């Protein structure tokens, strides 16, 4: 089980011959991910860590059959095109690692994907991983133990930090998903939580938010209205961030009066979602909501 990807997911790496693409292909293969092909225009016919490289997905699908998921490492200027290529060739999960894609291009392809029922993870994401089954991302695999906590986050290293805290206390993770650090992403907390609700294995969800936007507030409103729910514990980064400044992520900017820490925290707490003060408090709060 787990969500979005699993042991039977057949994946392709777009931009497999690049430095990042090649490096992480190795790590994903080591993890057991079924990478059946890679693309790199003009480099078709070669191999990267034993994975056949094609010039196009058109060719990859023709040779290897249908492909379920893609992970994109191509540079920002070519990333939108890679997303369209993936969607137009029947790929249902598209993980966009690439950082720095123009906002209006993201808006376009994210809508395009949504209409077609395709899940876009990212852009600017560490990826998605169903622990011990399939890793489509760049996260350090060893900090994640398998278990029943669903992890959904707008952050990278902070997620690993919290996963490590969970492990220390004996909690494992079903699937971990980085939504992506940009203002507009393919999936949001609500989309992912709905999947976790339907996943038999996942018993609780840890939500890792940060300042900027109103994704956490919207989740709180949504969560309040649910009749069937699984417990959620949250951590929000950025309490000390000043308004109007971009804190690393393009998405982590408090502007237009939206998205400050106070608003997020009170929304979540009003929805009966406990918010941890430090990463190390997350498993403690989890214990409390799970009634151990």
């Amino acid at each position, binding site marked *: 089980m787990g969500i979005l990807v699993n042991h039977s997911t057949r994946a392709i790496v777009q931009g497999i011959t690049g430095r990042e693409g090649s490096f992480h292909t190795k790590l994903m293969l080591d993890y057991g991910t079924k990478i059946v092909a890679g693309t790199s225009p003009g480099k078709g016919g070669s191999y990267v860590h034993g994975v056949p490289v094609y010039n196009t997905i058109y060719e990859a699908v023709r040779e290897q059959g249908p492909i379920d998921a893609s992970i994109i490492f191509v540079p920002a*200027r070519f990333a939108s095109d890679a997303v369209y290529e993936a969607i137009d060739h029947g790929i249902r999960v598209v993980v966009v690692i690439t950082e720095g894609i*123009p906002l209006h291009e993201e808006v376009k392809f994210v809508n395009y994907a949504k209409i077609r029922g395709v899940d876009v993870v990212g852009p600017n994401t560490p990826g998605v991983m169903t622990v011990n089954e399939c890793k489509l991302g760049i996260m350090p695999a060893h900090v994640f133990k398998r278990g029943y906590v669903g992890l959904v986050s707008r952050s990278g290293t902070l997620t690993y930090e919290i996963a490590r805290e969970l492990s220390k206390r004996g909690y494992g993770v079903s699937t971990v998903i980085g939504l992506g650090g940009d203002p507009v992403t393919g999936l949001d907390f609500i989309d992912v939580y709905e999947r976790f609700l339907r996943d038999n294995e996942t018993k609780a969800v840890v939500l890792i938010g940060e300042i900027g936007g*109103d994704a956490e507030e919207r989740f709180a409103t949504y969560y309040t209205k649910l009749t069937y729910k699984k417990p959620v514990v949250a951590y929000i980064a950025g*309490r000390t961030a000043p308004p109007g400044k971009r804190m690393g992520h*393009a*998405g982590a900017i408090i502007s237009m009066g939206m998205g400050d820490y106070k608003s997020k925290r009170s929304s979540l707490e009003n929805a009966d979602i406990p918010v941890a003060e430090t990463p190390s408090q997350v498993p403690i709060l989890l214990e409390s909501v799970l009634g151990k």
Partner: protein
Amino acid sequence: MKLYEYESKEIASRYGILVPRGRVVVSPSEAYSVARELGVVVLKAQVLVGGRGLAGGVRIAESPEEAYNIAEKLLSTSIRGERVEKLLVEEKVCISRELYLSLIVDRAARRPVYLISEMGGVEIEELAKKYPEKIHRVYVDPGIGYTDYIARVSLQVLKLPWTLLQDIANTTRAMYKIMVDYDAELVEFNPLALTCDNRLIALDAKIIIDDNSLYKHPELQRLYGRDLSEYEKRARELGFSYVELDGDIGVISNGAGLTMATMDSILYYGGKPANFLDIGGGAHRESVREAVKLMLTHPRSRVLLINIFGGITRCDEVAIGIIEAIREIGLIKPIIVRMLGTNEEEGRRILREQGIEVYSEMDDAVKVAVELSKR
């Protein structure tokens, strides 16, 4: 990247939107001569921070002499930490109503949306909190783009006379075109005013360009970073995400979320972070060295807390970078290191040899840093 009011108005004007006559000045005597030409004028400090009006950055001058005096005053002040270097001196326009009109990218809907309100002149954030029902939204499909009915709806929401349909249509259409042509995140006219003689005029204008799209606009890219402090500029040049704060514990971390969590933990344990510095993923010794040098020499920070979660980033590389920085600058302030992950043992050994203790737990490291900052 935010554009100054005068830049935004230049663009708006090029797209056919009416703005007050005026000029940018950098000296009181220039202000004097513009005022002599235009009569009663408004002097507006050109800064990128918000809340300019409340901070006294917008003033009316009835005479050229008064314009001179106000300009002299404004050009010697700072507004919320930002030095005023330019003023926009504009004719004072007779207005009957102040309206609000903007086009932004709505994160939740993942589309551009027009925000339209007949209550202009207040900040939209305030309006959204106090009178959310007074803001009408019209969403735009990114695949379709602008459609004409948006103008008709805007006209009705703004309660404008039907004779102004072409004017409002020119404005709404131009806003979308500006958003597309300039890769803007925001195009805002607040207030958009109805003049005493029934014309629409943009009294204030604000355009924010998407940073990720700047490469498509070389003329704007050159301006990038102009609103940064000297320190922020240096950090950016070194390739780091950097934000200046007002505390005394210097922070270096990897990943935006973890860096913020480190800052927040400092606050939680009673300290105050001096900055946000994210060295990014997979940093090598060189960039670690430069980051550490930057924060060692950072005047306000009394302690330096380094928090690295090694995934792609290798701990031994981080350790070597720290050591190299200390060799160059000297251990002029305490450095607290928390390191985890790839090659952790080797990194720990390197630092211990230099007498620097390495913590495994973030909480422990933060607590010690806070304690040291209070000595």
